[in-house]
């Protein structure tokens, strides 16, 4: 396959993922509304919001880095997509994106890259709430990364590879081949860390609407906010896809992709709807307890 065809497929995939991410966030808000007994927003509301944000006339800047914050965030999101195999299995080679060029470490790096860019950009905004939100976000991210990386390393030892495609391909051929069943301890560590990675309640202290409204994006408006919204939509899908490829056997068709990412995302919402928010030190300590212990056990099992 030529590079141009590959690029074409990648952009098509990006478009699909963006829209699926927006639909998913709308569904998320619908679900929360239904639990509360409300009708909720129209399902197409995120797209209207996007158009509206693009149509805002005033744009203020606090400096170059303020511009670059959303751009970095989008870069992180797109970077995660580029090196993530959307579909695996025979006949889906054109949906592997550029995953042959990079491995999990690169994806984890891109996950952090968006956050760091956002931190620099929001920091230049000068809003104290942003600064507090960034401090919280980075502290929590460090706590989340630890069990997540331990779990992933356990998988790497198990499958003797760091390539996400190989890990996902190794899980094909039946539900019992999934890492969930072949390496349950590492899966548990990863999925507990996933709660923090998605950033819904009880780990939503980065945005914390009634403590530091609303954290890093406080100063962002108009098109900046539109970029942040769309990159957020991509990141949510990509994180769900990461856990899908690691633990739940990857996807061999777009239908499977949609069902699996939705269920993984729904799992974090399900927890979020009925739990309040942790304070930052509680959240950090929470990740250092059970998930960390599980991660260490998962490493130890495969080390000997």
């Amino acid at each position, binding site marked *: 396959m030529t590079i141009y065809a590959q690029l074409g497929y990648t952009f098509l995939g990006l478009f699909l993922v963006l829209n699926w991410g927006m639909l998913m966030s709308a569904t998320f808000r619908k679900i*929360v509304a239904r*639990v*509360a*007994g*409300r009708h909720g927003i129209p399902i197409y509301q995120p797209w209207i919001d996007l158009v509206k944000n693009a149509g805002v006339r005033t744009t203020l800047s606090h400096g170059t880095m303020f511009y670059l914050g959303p751009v970095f965030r989008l870069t992180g999101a797109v970077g995660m997509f580029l090196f993530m195999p959307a579909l695996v299995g025979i006949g889906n080679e054109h949906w592997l994106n550029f995953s042959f060029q990079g491995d999990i470490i690169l994806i984890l790096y891109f996950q952090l890259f968006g956050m760091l860019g956002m931190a620099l950009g929001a920091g230049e905004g000068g809003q*104290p*709430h942003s600064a*507090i939100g960034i*401090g919280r976000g980075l502290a929590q991210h460090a706590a989340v990364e630890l069990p997540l990386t331990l779990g992933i390393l356990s998988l790497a030892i198990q499958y003797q590879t760091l390539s996400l495609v190989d890990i996902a391909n190794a899980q094909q051929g039946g539900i019992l081949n999934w890492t969930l069943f072949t390496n349950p301890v590492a899966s548990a560590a990863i999925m507990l860390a996933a709660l923090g990675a998605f950033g819904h*309640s*009880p780990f*939503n*202290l980065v945005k*914390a*609407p*009634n*403590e*530091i*409204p609303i954290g890093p994006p406080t100063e962002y408006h108009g098109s900046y906010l539109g970029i942040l919204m769309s990159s957020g939509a991509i990141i949510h899908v990509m994180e769900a896809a990461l856990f899908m490829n690691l633990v739940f056997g990857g996807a061999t068709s777009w239908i499977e992709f949609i069902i699996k990412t939705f269920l993984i995302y729904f799992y974090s919402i399900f927890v979020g*709807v*009925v*739990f*309040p*928010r*942790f*304070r*930052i*030190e*509680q959240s*950090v*300590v929470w990740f250092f*307890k059970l998930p960390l212990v599980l991660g260490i056990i998962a490493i130890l099992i495969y080390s000997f």
Partner: protein
Amino acid sequence: MSNKFFQPDRSKYPSMKDDGTLDVDLSSQKYTKIWLGPNHPGVTGNMAVEMTLGGDEIVQAKTHVGYLHRGFEKLIERRLFVQGFPTSIRMCVAEPDTNEYLIARSTEELSGLTDRVPEMAEWLRTLALEMARLQGLLRGVPGQAGTYSLGIGVQWGVYLRDLILDRFEELTGARVYHMYIIPGGVRGLLPSGFKRRMEDNLTDIDDFIVRIRKLIFHNSVFKSRAVGSAVIPKEWIDKFGIVGTNARASGVKRDVRKDNPYLKYSELDFDPPTATDGDVYSRTWVRWQELVQTVDLIRQIMAKMPEKGDIRGDMPNALHWKIPKGETYVKLESGRGEYGMYYVTDGSSKPRRVNLRGPSYTHAIAVLEKMLINTNIADVHATMVSLQTCPPEIER
């Protein structure tokens, strides 16, 4: 708790001097100044807390009120007694009926017409006050969980509060500002079928009470945040003049309904709930118990109240009503605590001075400022809601 490792070294913080000033050099980059409010979803009503932060911890807090100042006390001095009614009930929007009772009772007492109020009217006044308490609690109890971003309970609670507002609308014709309790009695009898519809709503609320208990008080995250947070020690109660549920949660049983019974409370069977710890969790727990009790009280009132009767005593012509010189202090137990009114007349057709004593006057300024020191910025909103601060009654 497990967060002992994360406590900062507070011994290096500057402490406040006697005159309320703090020696903090903001340009030293060690401290930040942050305003919580007035434009902030995390403040109750419209007020502001000016916080000096060292890291995430508050070194000094100052409350700023006055954003809702309308000068009621001045305006009432310019109005006839009866004109004072629509003005005065807007003093506090959370439970407006309490204001109605206070001003009606003060004018009746000062003009010596207290015994003209018929019994039926007393029952209806009690009912209106308890319904007001109920609608306040339906917002307040889940609202405490809402401060920790557990918004589902708030949504259910506000819906049920709307049902109670519907009953108010049926009884009085208005949703929020009712003007139901007037001098000499009340404005109307119960509409037919009111008790049945009220009973339906109370059944729904019973359901809600059970669910909210599971949602909030059995929730590990809520416990981990609320237990031991924002403690009011027992010694503070008299020192700061803390009243109502805040005092009862610290183990001091103080309830005007029991201490100085007014209206028909002496004929009702209830016992104000108490707790001992004085933290956010006990305050919420006391309020939840009070929610149960209020539902029970409304049922008792509807069972014990007579079917028919006079609702309004003979009163002087409202436009030419003059009250002889005198002064009084009337109080009642609102959802937030002792709520009183100091009323002075001078023999003319207008009051000389009206001073409202809201419980938040103490809770939201002296207590809050003291309590916020050394708390995490994440707990400020929860502390304010747990004290049930209501700015309009501070600044009137």
